[in-house]
Every structure is written in C-alpha cells, then in structure tokens.
C-alpha cells in the first residue's frame, strides 16, 4: 500500500459514506450536508488525479455556490422530515432491483472494456491550468460562449418562474 492508494481509499470511503448518508437521512438539510461531504471528497480525488483547477472549481462552485443555494431553499421552504406512504414503500422493491441491475450492468461493462486503460496513472504530471485555459479559449471557445448564453437564459427563467404573480 503506497501513500496515494491509502489516500484514494480514504477519500473513496468518505464519498461512498456521504452518498449512503444522503439516502438514509430523513431530513433534507442532513442530506444536503452529506452531499457537501461527497463533493469535498471528490475534490480531493481530483487533486489526486492531478486536476488542480477542476478541484478548485468543484469546491468553489459545487461546494460553495450550488449547495448554498440548496440549503437556502431548504430553509426558505421550511422543509421537514419526509413522509413515506404505503405506495412509495411498494415502489421501493422494483426500484431497488432496477438500481442494482443498472449498477451491475455498468460494472460488467467496465470489467469487459477497461483493459485499455489499465495503465497506471501518474498524479500531477500533466494538466497545468495554463494548458486547460488555452484549450477552453482556443478549441472550445464556441461552446464556452454558448454556456454564457445558457446561464443568461437560466437566470432569466429563474426570475420569471419565482416572481409572484400580480394580483
């Protein structure tokens, strides 16, 4: 066991534990805090993969902005403990089967097809932020401009949707 492998398993356990906690917590605010744990663990994994800029964006945008928005809405709507009806318990059985089938399908596909990417990864030997920015502003400049338009439309949509109707 080398040091990066131990760090990987610690972060992976943190991420999976946070995801399980998201499922089993009854109160939405606890689910939101569990999701923040998952996101910070994933940021650590990105650092381990040598993607420093993505790790920083993950913490600032996901852990910061998006989750603050979630927690804000949970508090604004005063969301309580969720209730389960008989029907939702009944729907759980096929749901569980379907989720396991999906995970098994993905696992089988990975087991069959990842011989080509077995190559050991070297952390931190690539992915300088300078190369990343050159790529975004040269090769992906039109998609980048489109995302700014997308954000503009999303903000307009959010304002129109959330504004109170005039009586």
């Amino acid at each position: 066991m080398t040091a990066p492998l131990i760090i990987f398993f610690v972060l992976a356990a943190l991420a999976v534990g946070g995801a399980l906690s998201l499922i089993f917590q009854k109160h939405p605010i606890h689910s939101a805090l569990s999701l923040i744990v998952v996101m910070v663990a994933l940021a650590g994994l990105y650092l381990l993969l040598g993607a420093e800029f993505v790790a920083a964006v993950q913490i600032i945008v996901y852990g910061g902005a998006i989750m603050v928005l979630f927690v804000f809405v949970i508090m604004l709507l005063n969301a309580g403990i969720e209730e389960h009806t008989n029907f939702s318990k009944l729907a759980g059985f096929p749901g569980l089967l379907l989720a396991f089938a999906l995970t098994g399908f993905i696992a089988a596909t990975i087991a069959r097809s990842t011989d080509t990417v077995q190559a050991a990864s070297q952390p931190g030997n690539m992915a300088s932020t300078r190369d990343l920015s050159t790529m975004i502003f040269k090769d992906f400049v039109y998609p980048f401009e489109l995302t700014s338009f997308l954000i503009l439309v999303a903000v307009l949509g959010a304002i129109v949707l959330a504004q109170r109707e005039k009586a």
Partner: protein
Amino acid sequence: MIPTNYYIVLSAILFGLGVLAFIFKRNIISIFMSIELMLNAVNLAFVAFSQAMHKLDGQVFVLFVIVVAAAEAAVGLAIIILTARNRQSLNVERVDLLKL
C-alpha cells in the same frame, strides 16, 4: 500508482447510489440533490479518463458539466419554490395533478 479502474468503479458506485436516492427519496429537494450526485459521479469518470488518456478534453467537459449543473440548479430550485407555493407540500406524491 492508482489504476484508472478504481476511479471508474467508484464513479459507477456513486452513480448507482444516486439512482437509488432518486428512486427512494420522496422530498422533491432530496430528489434534486440525488441528480447532482449522479452528475458528480460522471465528472469523476471524465477526469479519470482524461488522466488515463493524457488529454485535457475530459477536464474541459467537466467544467461545462459544472456550468450546466449550476444553470440547472437555478431553474430547478425556482420550479421547486413555485411547486411548494402552489401545493403547500414538498412531497412528490402530492404533485399528481397538472392543474389544481
């Protein structure tokens, strides 16, 4: 060092847990959070493959996914606020009519 397989398997596990949460949760905000969990799982696979292939395209895609997730969160939470205001409930089973 760490084989890429480990990252992909972790990504698949997180995606499966996201699907489970999506099915089992009854609170509309929790369901929305499980969508974010699935997006995060896909991002991990993107970065892992980008590192394995020694190409930066995967990381650029991750940045685009994060931007789209932010836009989605803004619109989705506005819809949730609207639903909660009209139904006085956050339970998705109470949202079963197109018109009140």
